[in-house]
């Protein structure tokens, strides 16, 4: 258990499926809407630009990005790679149930990524550690 801002919060641990293994720590940014990296995110800034998206106008740079799955063009895999090169990519990613676009994007960009996680348990602002098949957050 951690002590934070005067209240006690339980540290939670969940297990998922490794898509790209690694250890990373950061702040969660959570959405319940699928993300299209090609056309939906500006690779130069990391800001979500898809009209009407919950995260529209918000940067995913250096976050632990938590979302159900990817959508849209398969070119999105290359967009993630481009963001990693630009320094605008998320630090790590967590999906409910992933698909090929984000999975391939994470592998070629070497971004730690797991799926099969009940993402509704995670809130934006949570501190998260991804460690191989395990996530720890509070």
């Amino acid at each position, binding site marked *: 258990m951690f002590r934070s801002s005067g209240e006690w919060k339980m540290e939670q641990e969940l297990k998922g*499926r490794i*898509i*790209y293994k690694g250890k990373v720590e950061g702040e969660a940014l959570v959405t319940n809407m699928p993300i299209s990296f*090609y056309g939906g995110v500006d*690779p130069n800034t990391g800001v979500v630009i898809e009209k009407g998206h919950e995260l529209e106008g918000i940067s995913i740079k250096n976050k632990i990005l938590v979302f159900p799955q990817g959508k849209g*063009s*398969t*070119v999105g*895999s*290359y*967009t993630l*790679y*481009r*963001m*990693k*090169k*630009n320094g605008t990519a998320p630090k790590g990613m967590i999906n409910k149930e*992933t*698909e*090929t*676009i984000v*999975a*391939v994007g994470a*592998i*070629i960009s070497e971004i730690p990524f797991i*799926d099969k996680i009940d993402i509704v348990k995670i809130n934006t602002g949570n501190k998260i550690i991804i460690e191989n098949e395990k996530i720890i957050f509070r």
Partner: protein
Amino acid sequence: MELTKQEQAMLDGKEGYAVRKSMEILVALGEIFDAKNLIDVGSVQVSGVSYHNLGDAGLEFLDSLANDGKVKVLTTLNPAGMDLENWQQLGITPEFADKQNLVIEAFQRMGILVSCTCTPYLIGNLPLYGEHIAWSESSAVTFANSVLGARTNREGGPSALAAAFVGKTPCYGLHLDENRVPDVHVEVKTELFKLSDWGALGYAIGKKAENKIPYLTGIKTANLDELKNFCASAVTYGAKPLFYIKGITPGVEQQIQPKKTVIINAEDIKNAYDSINDNTDEIDFVCIGCPHCSIKEIQEIADLIQDKKVDKNVELWVATSRTIKQLADKRGYTAIIEAAGGKFACDTCMAVAPLKGRFKALATTSAKGCFYSRQNLMKTKMGSTKECLEAAVNGKWNKN
């Protein structure tokens, strides 16, 4: 997923970076989709070729693979963002051309045939019935699965490249009999008169049988160009990349007609045209060849445009592969079309060239072409080859 010793060695990096990265992709996809093993593929078709879509990072990734290895099976390439020889005449900037050439050069170093076409089956990458392949490019995937009876999932650019470097793909989805069973009967209760009617049918099926494998009845005849057009449309508008047509496509005898039936009648075809067509009479861009033109389609264009002149405010593109264009050169079709003011757009197409803002209104035979041109902010009209060429000559849609 179970790996052989040799596959495990590739995953461990024994064959270098390109093969290791490729194995990581294939194994991850295999795990995601519960594949038991990898299977050999006979050929690969790679999409993600236009610099317009790849950007510098994509180019950098391709370069890193090209520095390290060669593909193991016959691998062909999707259209690029420009005609590789004649880009200046098609309004491409030198900056774009330089980058696009670097992309092509990287693919070449990997040992990939720089075919730059969405119709690999017309230029020598022709898989056999039952053959496992790993193709990207949705219209070609649909054609291979349905018209040829080969087996492929709808790969993305990087997963197709991975299959090419390893010579294998994870065995799941449309590689397996149980996932190739049709799940909706589509009764076509209307005649199809012209090429674009097949695009309209594809639109109607995409909407009525979204994410399903249709089993079509009521179609009496079909030719290569009609099926090519239909494949592109159905998958663009939402169907799975596999269909059966009773009496026409292979393997249909082994399947049972699904009980659930949807009907397509003349009104559905008309509604498809109404949805695809915008309200515009002025046309400033006519493009035929989505998917890329066959030699027969080019012959038809030459016959129709002979001794006519394209309007000075209109640009007419015939999109095809360089291989087919060379046939057209020899047959004299190219000279006829160019004398009329038409241009050939080889190696590229209206879906991947950087065309945003260049044209106001497109006329085409292709429902898929209309879908992608809307993203390029064009109004669209779909019709027969004859109607499109009349629009090219008049600068107006259906003036007569």
